[in-house]
C-alpha cells in the first residue's frame, strides 16, 4: 500500500503568555484595588456618620441633617447649581467639540490642546481670576465698561458674585470634561452614517441633530455627569464666590462643619446624600442610553467626514474665540496682570516672579512633587480606568458592573471629606502612608478615578466588540487584545484621559490639603496657602507656571508615537 506523505502541517498554536484565563484574577485584583481606593475611606466616613464619640451607633447626624433647614437649603441650591453647570458645560462644549472634530476650522489641534490645558486652572484660582475680572466694582470688565459708557461708580455690567456668576465660573472649568469626551466621540463616528442621512435628504443640521449628536450621546451624558458631580462637590469656587453672593452650597456648609468645634460626623453624613445623587444620575444615564447601540466603529470601516464651514467660518471662529476668551484668555490675562503688578499699587514689577522662583523655598520641591505625582497618577490611573471600563463594557466576568459603581463612587464625596476619610484610612499604625507621597498617590487615584473611568467607558461605546473578538480568536488574550487593538483604537481617549488625570492631579486641592506635609508639598497647596496670606501676585505666577507646564505636557502627550502613532481613521 502506498504511503501518502502529507505535507507536514505544523500546527501553529497560539502562544499564550499564561495558561490561565486572566479575566477572573484581573477582576478580583481590580475589585481589591478599588475596594482599597474607594471603600476604605468610604467605610471610615460611614463609620464617622453612624458612630458617635463614645463609639455608639447613632442616627443623630442624619436627623440633624434632615431636621435643619440650614443644611437642607444649601443642598437644594447646590443641586440647582450643579445642574446649571452641567447644562452650560454641554451648551458650550458640544458645539465647540463639533467644530474642532468635524469641521475644517483652522487651528483645530491647537484649540483642542488649549482647552485641555486651560483645564489646569485650579477652580478656585479661576474663581479668583473671575473676581479680578467681574467683581461689580473693581472687576476689570466693569471698570472698562464704566470708562467706556460713563456709567456711575458702583454700577456694574456683570457681577460674578451671583448664582449665575458662580454657575458660569464653575462651568468654565468643567466644560473641558464634556468637550474632550464629545470631541473624541465625534472622531469615531464614521462618515457612512452621516452620508446615509444626507442622501435621504437630511440637511447638514438635520443630520447633525438626528444622527451625529445622538451617536455621541453617551459621551455627552458622561461629560455632563462628571461636570454636574464635580460642581456638586466643588469647594474652591463656591467658597470664593457664593459667600459674597450671600448663599451656601453644600460644600461650603460642610466646610464650616470642620471649623471649631469640628463635627466630622455631621460632615460625613452630609456627604452621603451626594452619593445618592450620584447613583440617581448614573441610573438616569443608563436609562437614557437604554438598549440603543452606539457602536459605530464596526469592521466595515469608514472615516469621519469633515464639514466645510464655508461662509460660516468667521462666525465659528468668533464662537471659539469667545469661549476661549472667557475660559482661558481673559482669566489668564487677569492672572498675568496680577502677576506683574502689586495690589493697589500702579506700575509693573517682577517681584512676584522673583519671589516664587528664587525666594520661596517651597516652590522647587512642590513643583517636583507635583510632577512626580502627576505622571504616576496619570499613568496608573489611566491604566486602571482602561481596565475597569473594559471590564464593565465587555463583562467578561459576572458582576463586572460593580466595578463601574465603585469607580464612580468617589465623585460624590466632597474632596475635603474624602481627605479626612483617606487620612483615617492610611494613617493607621500598621499602614502609615501619611507624610509620604504614597498617600497623595492613593488620594489622587481615588479622586481621579470617576472622571478617568467615565472617559474610557464612553469611548468603549464606540468600539465594536467584534474588533476585539477578531483578535482573541486569533489567539490574543484579553490583555493582549486590550493592549494591541483596543487601546490604540481608543488612542485619543486614552491620551485625553491621561492628560485629564494629570491635570486633575495638578490642580486638586481640597483633599490634598489635609494630606500634605512639609516634604510632600504640592503646588496647588502652596497656592492655597499663599491665598490665605493674600499673596495674589505669587499665586498668579504659580498659576501661570502650572498652565505652561501642563500645556507642554499635553502637547507632548498628544504627539508621542505611543499606541500605534497618530495614524488612525479617527485622527487627522
Amino acid at each position: 500500500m502506498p504511503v501518502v506523505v502529507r505535507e507536514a502541517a505544523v500546527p501553529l498554536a497560539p502562544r499564550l503568555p499564561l495558561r490561565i484565563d486572566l479575566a477572573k484574577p484581573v477582576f478580583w485584583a481590580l475589585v481589591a484595588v478599588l475596594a482599597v481606593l474607594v471603600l476604605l475611606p468610604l467605610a471610615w466616613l460611614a463609620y464617622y456618620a453612624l458612630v458617635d464619640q463614645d463609639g455608639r451607633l447613632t442616627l443623630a447626624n442624619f436627623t440633624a441633617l434632615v431636621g435643619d433647614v440650614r443644611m437642607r437649603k444649601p443642598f437644594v441650591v447646590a443641586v440647582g447649581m450643579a445642574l446649571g453647570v452641567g447644562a452650560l458645560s454641554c451648551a458650550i462644549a458640544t458645539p465647540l467639540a463639533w467644530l474642532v472634530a468635524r469641521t475644517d476650522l483652522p487651528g483645530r489641534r491647537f484649540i483642542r490642546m488649549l482647552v485641555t490645558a486651560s483645564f489646569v486652572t485650579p477652580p478656585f484660582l479661576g474663581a479668583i481670576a473671575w473676581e479680578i475680572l467681574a467683581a461689580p466694582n473693581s472687576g476689570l470688565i466693569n471698570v472698562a465698561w464704566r470708562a467706556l459708557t460713563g456709567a456711575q461708580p458702583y454700577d456694574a455690567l456683570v457681577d460674578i458674585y451671583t448664582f449665575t456668576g458662580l454657575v458660569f465660573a464653575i462651568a468654565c472649568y468643567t466644560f473641558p470634561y464634556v468637550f474632550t469626551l464629545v470631541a473624541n466621540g465625534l472622531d469615531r463616528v464614521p462618515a457612512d452614517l452621516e452620508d446615509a442621512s444626507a442622501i435621504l435628504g437630511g440637511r447638514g443640521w438635520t443630520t447633525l441633530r438626528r444622527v451625529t449628536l445622538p451617536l455621541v450621546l453617551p459621551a455627552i451624558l458622561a461629560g455632563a455627569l462628571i461636570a454636574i458631580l464635580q460642581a456638586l462637590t466643588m469647594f474652591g469656587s463656591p467658597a470664593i464666590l457664593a459667600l459674597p453672593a450671600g448663599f451656601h452650597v453644600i460644600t461650603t456648609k460642610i466646610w464650616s462643619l470642620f471649623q471649631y468645634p469640628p463635627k466630622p460626623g455631621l460632615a460625613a453624613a452630609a456627604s452621603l446624600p451626594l452619593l445618592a445623587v450620584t447613583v440617581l444620575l448614573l441610573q438616569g444615564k443608563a436609562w437614557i442610553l437604554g438598549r440603543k447601540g452606539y457602536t459605530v466603529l464596526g469592521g466595515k470601516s469608514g472615516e469621519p467626514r469633515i464639514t466645510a464651514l464655508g461662509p460660516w467660518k468667521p462666525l465659528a471662529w468668533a464662537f471659539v474665540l469667545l469661549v476661549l476668551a472667557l475660559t482661558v484668555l481673559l482669566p489668564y490675562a487677569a492672572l498675568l496682570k496680577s502677576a506683574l503688578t502689586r495690589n493697589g499699587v500702579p506700575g509693573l514689577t517682577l517681584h512676584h516672579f522673583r519671589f516664587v522662583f528664587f525666594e520661596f523655598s517651597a516652590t522647587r520641591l512642590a513643583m517636583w512633587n507635583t510632577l512626580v505625582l502627576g505622571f504616576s497618577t496619570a499613568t496608573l490611573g489611566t491604566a486602571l480606568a482602561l481596565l475597569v471600563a473594559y471590564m464593565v463594557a465587555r463583562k467578561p466576568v459576572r458582576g463586572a458592573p460593580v466595578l463601574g459603581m465603585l469607580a464612580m463612587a468617589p465623585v460624590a464625596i466632597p474632596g475635603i471629606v474624602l481627605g479626612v476619610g483617606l487620612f483615617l484610612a492610611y494613617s493607621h499604625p500598621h499602614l502609615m502612608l501619611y507624610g509620604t507621597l504614597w498617600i497623595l498617590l492613593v488620594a489622587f487615584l481615588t479622586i481621579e478615578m470617576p472622571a478617568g473611568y467615565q472617559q474610557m467607558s464612553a469611548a468603549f461605546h464606540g468600539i465594536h466588540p467584534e474588533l476585539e473578538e477578531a483578535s482573541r480568536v486569533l489567539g490574543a488574550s484579553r490583555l493582549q487584545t486590550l493592549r494591541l487593538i483596543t487601546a490604540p483604537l481608543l488612542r485619543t481617549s486614552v491620551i485625553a484621559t491621561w492628560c485629564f488625570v494629570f491635570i486633575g492631579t495638578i490642580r486638586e486641592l481640597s483633599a490634598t490639603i489635609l494630606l500634605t506635609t512639609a516634604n510632600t508639598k504640592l503646588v496647588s497647596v502652596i497656592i492655597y496657602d499663599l491665598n490665605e496670606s493674600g499673596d495674589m501676585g505669587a499665586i498668579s505666577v504659580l498659576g501661570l507656571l502650572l498652565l505652561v507646564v501642563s500645556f507642554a505636557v499635553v502637547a507632548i502627550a498628544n504627539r508621542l508615537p505611543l499606541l500605534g502613532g497618530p495614524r488612525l481613521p479617527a485622527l487627522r
Partner: protein
Amino acid sequence: QAPAPYDVTPQLVAAAQKEGKVVWYSATDVQVAEKLARAFEAKYPGIKVQVERSGAERIFQRINQEYGSRIYNADVVETSDAVHFVHFKKQGWLQPAVPSDVAKFWPREYRDPDGQFAAYRAHLSVIAYNTKLVPKDQAPKSLADLLDPRWSGKIVKAHPGYSGTIMTGTQAISQAVGWKFFEQLGKQKVMQVQSSTEPPKKLAAGERPVMADGNEYNVFLLRESGVPIEPVYAPEGTPLVVGNAAILKNAPDPNAARLFYHFMFSREAQQLNSDVGGLRSFHPEVKEKAGRVPLSQIKLLNSDPAKLDAEDIKKRYEEYFGT
C-alpha cells in the same frame, strides 16, 4: 501648676543640636514665619526649623487628626485661634513649659495658668477704609457709623464660620454692644468673604470702600506697601485676637522644641513679628513701627475662649447675614 521658668543653657543647646531639627506648625504668614525660622537657624546653627505653615483651622485639624491617629510629627504648634488651645489642653496634648521671658513680661491673662501655652502673638480685627474712595472726614469712626444707610452695599466683612479671628471678634463685639448691631449690619448689603485676611485686599482692589472687620496686620502691610488704606479704632472697642503657642507633649524633638519655644518669645523674635508681620506683641520691649497706633492707646475688647459658643454665633450670624 506651672513649672518653673526656664532659660537657654548650653546643655539645652547641645541637646537640641543633637536632635538637629524642630517642626513648627504655624499659622503665621509664611514670609514672617520663614524669616523667624531663618533667624533661629542663624542663632543656633545645626538646628533646622521645618515650617509647616497653614491656616489656623487646618493646623487645628491636622493636630487633631495626627494625635487621633497617634502620629507625632509636630514639636511646636501655634495658631491664631485661642479656642484651639483650650481643646488641646483638655485633650492633654500639651507639654507645660514657661520660657523666662514669658514669666518675666507676660500679663497673666495672656498665658496659661498651668504653663501649657502662652500668647505668642496678637492682632486686632479692625474697621478700615480705602482713603482714595472715602475722604478721611467722611470715613466711619465707630461701629455705629457702619449702620449709616450711606454704607449700604459698600461694606465688606469676613465670616465667622471661616475665620477664627472673626469668630472671636464677633463674640467680643456681641458682648460689648449686643447682637442688635449685627442684626442691623446684616441689612447693609454687606459683601461676605471667607477669611479675615481678605477684606483688606478687597479694599485695596477697590471692590468695596469700607471693611467692617478684618486683620489689622494686613492693613498695616498693605499700607506700608503703598496702598491707600487706613485702620479705624472704634470707640466701642476693637477685638483683640490672641494667637497662642505651645510645645506638644509627644514632640519628637523635645529639646529643640524647648529651645525654639524659648526663642519665639524672645525680644528679637517678637520684634521681627511686629516689623515684618505687623503683629502685636505682649513683650514690653518691642517697639512699634512708626505710624502704628500703639496697643496702649486702643480700647481693646477681650474675649474668653473658654466661653465661646461657636454654634450659637454661627446660627445667629446666619440668621442676620443669610450665610
